[in-house]
């Protein structure tokens, strides 16, 4: 009996895992014992970290999109069909087309979405760089601003100890904004105010969700004349008066509000009944080591959908993907998972338009911030425009 592996989601997690599974299970594929199918709601694959470059007119955006089929090994069957129903009792997923995809093993990799509508007034009055559309809107505003205030706000999910997408992005974009406005010669007349919420996973009243970096940020910001304050959890925006209100009872005026909005899991996951997260956010209960969905014997998850405290970022997926692929392979071969995820996240932060800082952390150790460099920036940008695609294909 041919064993069926179904991957739901064609983003970074789904693509890397499908390719890694195909590589790992090549002997079974050659014998006709295994078939791998990936379903996605889109024919295209978007490299999400590219969006913030669009916000500063450093990229048009098309460089970060490829056809999903071109990123997958031919052994993988790829079908454009949005998942609309997950039935873990009877081991199938129903697509928008009405077709049923049965599975012996499944990987849920549908990521997360920005949900600005969860804060009254944010969708109408605020901006964000986490989507290409949002980044384009920001680019136009940044292009024309000559004076006033850009206010940065960051929101976390209501479910405890879960980060927003890409923890370092608010810091990156704040420094990139400083560089951009300096380049344009308007920095002196535009005030940049970086705010951070009271609660940020295990950090209270800080400027970042990890202590070591949170401690060095004030000095870094001061050196660039970037104002910073903690204890500001955005909970309402008045789009007409352009005022941001916090849970803590404060209000701040802005000309541009560059926000990190609330994030939620995708609809099919939120409606699956599998989540135990608060506020209908939909994060999947994940075993931090095996990456199995808790309570299910044959379903794995990784990437942005998990309820783990690790970063919702590509650099996390790059280390989770082999754990999932290896575990599914060993379950097929021996009947039990054999690999364990140690929480490793790797990345090169874009700390300003031309300065890059390699970083890594895991379940045991936080990021140790180091000075950024021009060479680091080259490696980051090289990753954006080339190495990422090799990574997505499972080549690196």
């Amino acid at each position: 009996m041919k064993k069926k592996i179904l991957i739901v989601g064609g983003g970074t997690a789904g693509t890397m895992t499908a390719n890694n599974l195909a590589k790992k299970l090549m002997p079974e594929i050659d014998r006709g014992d295994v078939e791998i199918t990936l379903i996605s709601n889109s024919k295209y694959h978007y490299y999400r970290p590219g969006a913030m470059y669009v916000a500063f007119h450093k990229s048009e955006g098309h460089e970060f999109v490829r056809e999903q089929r071109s990123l997958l090994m031919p052994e993988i069957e790829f079908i454009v069909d949005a998942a609309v129903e997950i039935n873990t009792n009877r081991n199938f997923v129903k697509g928008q087309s009405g077709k049923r995809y049965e599975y012996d093993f499944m990987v849920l990799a549908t990521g997360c979405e920005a949900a600005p509508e969860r804060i009254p007034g944010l969708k109408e009055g605020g901006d964000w760089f986490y989507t290409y559309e949002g980044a384009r809107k920001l680019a136009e505003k940044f292009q024309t601003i000559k004076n006033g205030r850009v206010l940065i706000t960051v929101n976390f999910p209501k479910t405890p100890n879960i980060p927003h997408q890409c923890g370092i992005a608010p810091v990156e974009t704040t420094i990139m904004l400083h560089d951009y406005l300096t380049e344009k010669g308007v920095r002196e007349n535009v005030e940049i105010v970086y705010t951070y919420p009271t609660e940020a996973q295990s950090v209270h009243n800080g400027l970042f969700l990890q202590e070591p970096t949170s401690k060095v940020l004030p000095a870094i910001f001061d050196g660039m004349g970037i104002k910073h304050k903690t204890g500001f959890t955005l909970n309402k925006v008045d789009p007409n008066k352009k005022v941001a209100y916090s849970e803590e009872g404060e209000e701040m005026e802005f000309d541009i509000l560059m926000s990190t909005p609330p994030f939620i899991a995708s609809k099919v996951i939120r409606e699956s009944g599998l989540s135990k997260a608060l506020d209908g956010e939909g994060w999947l209960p994940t075993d931090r080591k095996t990456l199995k969905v808790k309570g299910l014997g044959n379903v794995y998850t990784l990437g942005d959908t998990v309820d783990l405290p690790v970063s919702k970022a590509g650099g996390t997926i790059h280390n989770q993907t082999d754990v999932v692929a290896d575990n599914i392979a060993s379950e097929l071969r021996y009947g039990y998972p054999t690999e364990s995820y140690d929480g490793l996240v790797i990345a090169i932060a874009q700390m300003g338009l031309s300065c890059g800082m390699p970083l890594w952390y895991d379940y045991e150790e936080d990021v140790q911030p180091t000075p950024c460099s021009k060479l680091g920036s080259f490696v980051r940008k090289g990753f954006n425009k080339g190495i990422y695609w090799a990574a997505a294909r499972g080549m690196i």
Partner: protein
Amino acid sequence: MNEKVEVLKSKEMQALEEKMTMLVQTGRIDNLIDLLAVVSDNIEMTTQPMVEKMIGTVDNMATAGFVTENAVRYAKRETDKNEVPSLFGMLKLLKDKDTRKGLAFILNLTKGIGKQL
């Protein structure tokens, strides 16, 4: 006033010093320092557009490699699975949509090369 200062060195520092002394004495240090200097200068001179072009070239080659490697592996698997086809078997293979897509691609590939000659 004459003072003699004695510096206490750890075993490791001593070993390092000995290596550096050797490099200086043999004249090797010149090339090594020059190499580091050239690397540093090249990093300084590199610009963002250069990085993009270099990475674009790497990506193009990786993509061509990926596509070719996949096609070869697929072709090998299919060929191994079946007996050597008869003439009729060949026609059947030609009728397949993916085969025709691939042949059209090869013809266009040939055309693309022709255009560059």
